[in-house]
């Protein structure tokens, strides 16, 4: 596991997540517009712009926002990030499995939840195998 022990000031890093938010907003807008949902596209673009701007504006006061951005992240926040990622994956997998079972009970194939669940399972198994070799 690669974990940053020290907080290394990386001023340029704070622009990465806001830039990705903006890029995602543009992608959502273009996709929604192509799908004939201009209003929805504008709303999603606006949400992503506000999110990205908030990351930039409030990072000076909030460790949480600086941690989300990745600048000045130390070993404790790297651990927090790792755990938060694990919790997120756990919730997602539980929802996917639940939705798969629900779809089966309704007489459907379970797609796409079957494939999403399979992807999660295979990813976990491969990750355990690779990380075991590297640890």
């Amino acid at each position: 596991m690669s974990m940053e022990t020290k907080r290394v000031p990386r001023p340029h890093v704070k622009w990465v997540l806001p830039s990705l938010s903006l890029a995602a907003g543009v992608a959502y807008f273009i996709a929604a517009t192509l799908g004939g949902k201009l209003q929805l596209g504008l709303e999603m673009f606006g949400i992503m712009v506000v999110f990205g701007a908030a990351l930039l504006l409030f990072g000076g006061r909030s460790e949480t926002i600086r941690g989300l951005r990745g600048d000045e992240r130390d070993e404790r926040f790297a651990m927090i990030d790792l755990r938060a990622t694990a919790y997120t994956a756990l919730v997602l997998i539980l929802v996917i499995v639940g939705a798969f079972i629900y779809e089966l009970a309704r007489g459907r194939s379970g797609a796409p939840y079957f494939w999403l669940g399979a992807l999660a399972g295979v990813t976990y198994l491969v990750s355990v195998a690779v990380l075991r070799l590297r640890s």
Partner: protein
Amino acid sequence: MRNLVRELRSGRGLSQGQLADALGVSRQTINAIETERYTPSLPLALELARYFKTSVEEIFDVDGDKARA
């Protein structure tokens, strides 16, 4: 994990921010260590010991009965 970081830091007249800057971590991380909400990694524990010119065992107590006895 029980530890003497707060006592050692206060004894040297340092703020949490000053110690954090010296060790290259956030002030919140120092606070979390002092309040036993976070157990530092071995490298950071060694850095703390080196900074205070003592040993890791003198700062951290796994059993929890030595540090604040």
